[in-house]
């Protein structure tokens, strides 16, 4: 499902959780929503899922406002960290609720996923561990088969084997039943390869919307004598810099062309790659300091 967000604002008291956010997604892909804690990820997802009404601005899901729109919300599933299920009931009741309320619910698939994550239908939700609760959220999210499925930091407390099981199931089910996924996270390294595109937000604003794979190799570190580095990066987008004695390392955003690479080598500068997580840290910090907009 396509998602269009225009100048979206969401205020809580005197805090702008979303501050004029705009972007548009074509749909049918797995999107990563990245941002630091408190950057507005959950607020954005809540508005997209019609859990909340925005203060101002517009959200269009397949061209229609989702809030109180039965045709749209029945096609959306947002799984939050807190898990919107009956805590006092057994896992079986959670599945029953999915069957009764979700338009595209697949009971057989839900059973299969429960087995994969080793969850018993007889257990009470409140007796589950943090990781098991997260796994239950993943079961509900995947078995909903909603055309727009969103997971908000849904892997919390899950151990590595369960997280990998999640990634594998996500990819397998996405391949078998193509639909739109939005997955929010602040742990990038592990999940970045799952995403086709990423959206980075910070302080309720868009920092970047880019093909995930293109983001790799998008950052370059330039290391060398301080004055030479300064001259070289003068016309480039510098995300951050560090100095050690007379040596300086600058992180720049964007790919260098052949001429620039040659010029750097001639000037005795060392060029190096930037890891995705570092690039993310630099980008969100740069956003806060107003270097990139």
């Amino acid at each position: 499902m396509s998602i269009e967000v225009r100048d979206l604002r969401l205020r809580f008291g005197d805090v702008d959780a979303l501050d004029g956010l705009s972007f548009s997604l074509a749909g049918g892909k797995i999107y990563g929503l990245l941002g630091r804690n408190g950057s507005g990820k959950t607020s954005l997802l809540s508005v997209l899922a019609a859990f909340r009404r925005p203060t101002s601005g517009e959200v269009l899901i397949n061209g229609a406002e989702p809030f109180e729109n039965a045709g749209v919300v029945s096609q959306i599933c947002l799984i939050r960290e807190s898990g919107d299920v009956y805590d006092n009931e057994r896992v079986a009741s959670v599945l029953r609720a999915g069957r009764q309320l979700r338009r595209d619910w697949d009971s057989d698939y839900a059973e299969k996923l429960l087995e994969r994550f080793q969850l018993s239908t007889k257990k009470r939700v409140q007796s589950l561990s943090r990781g098991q609760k997260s796994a239950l959220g993943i079961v509900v999210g995947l078995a909903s088969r909603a055309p727009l499925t969103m997971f908000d930091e849904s892997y919390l407390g899950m151990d590595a084997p369960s997280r990998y099981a999640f990634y594998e199931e996500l990819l397998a089910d996405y391949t078998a039943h193509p639909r739109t996924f939005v997955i929010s996270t602040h742990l990038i390294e592990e999940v970045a390869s799952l995403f086709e595109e990423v959206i980075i937000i910070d302080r309720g604003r868009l920092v970047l919307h880019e093909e995930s794979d293109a983001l790799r190799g998008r950052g370059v570190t330039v290391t060398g004598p301080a004055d030479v580095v300064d001259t070289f990066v003068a016309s480039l987008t510098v995300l951050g810099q560090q100095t050690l004695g007379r040596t300086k390392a600058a992180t720049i955003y964007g790919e260098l062309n052949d001429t620039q690479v040659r010029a750097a080598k001639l000037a005795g500068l060392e060029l190096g790659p930037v890891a995705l997580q570092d690039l993310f840290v630099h980008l969100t910090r740069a956003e806060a300091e107003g270097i990139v907009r």
Partner: protein
Amino acid sequence: MFDDRSPIYQQIAEKIKKDILYGDLTADEQVMSTNQYASFYRINPATAAKAFQQLTDDGYLYKRRGIGMFVSPDAQERLRAGRREKFFSDVVRPMVAEARAVGIDLQEIIHHLKEQA
């Protein structure tokens, strides 16, 4: 499996090319499908597809509708030709530079290579 220093699709393409070059994938052999690749390496299918697209565009793989992707008969030869061209610039020159830097005589290298061969 993949590092995050360059796009994954390039890393996949490079790996397949290497398999062809070293003969692990032979002419007209079927390669893994995009989806198999994606689930095996836990990556987005679109990323895997992009790698395969690049390899078919470059003629190293060919598609058979409804069946899958196969290694082009001339793929290994073409890769060899390409690598041969770069062998001296990419492999030998850095080696010579390193040898000079650490003080190894060229004669010594030649002697060593002859012994190995």
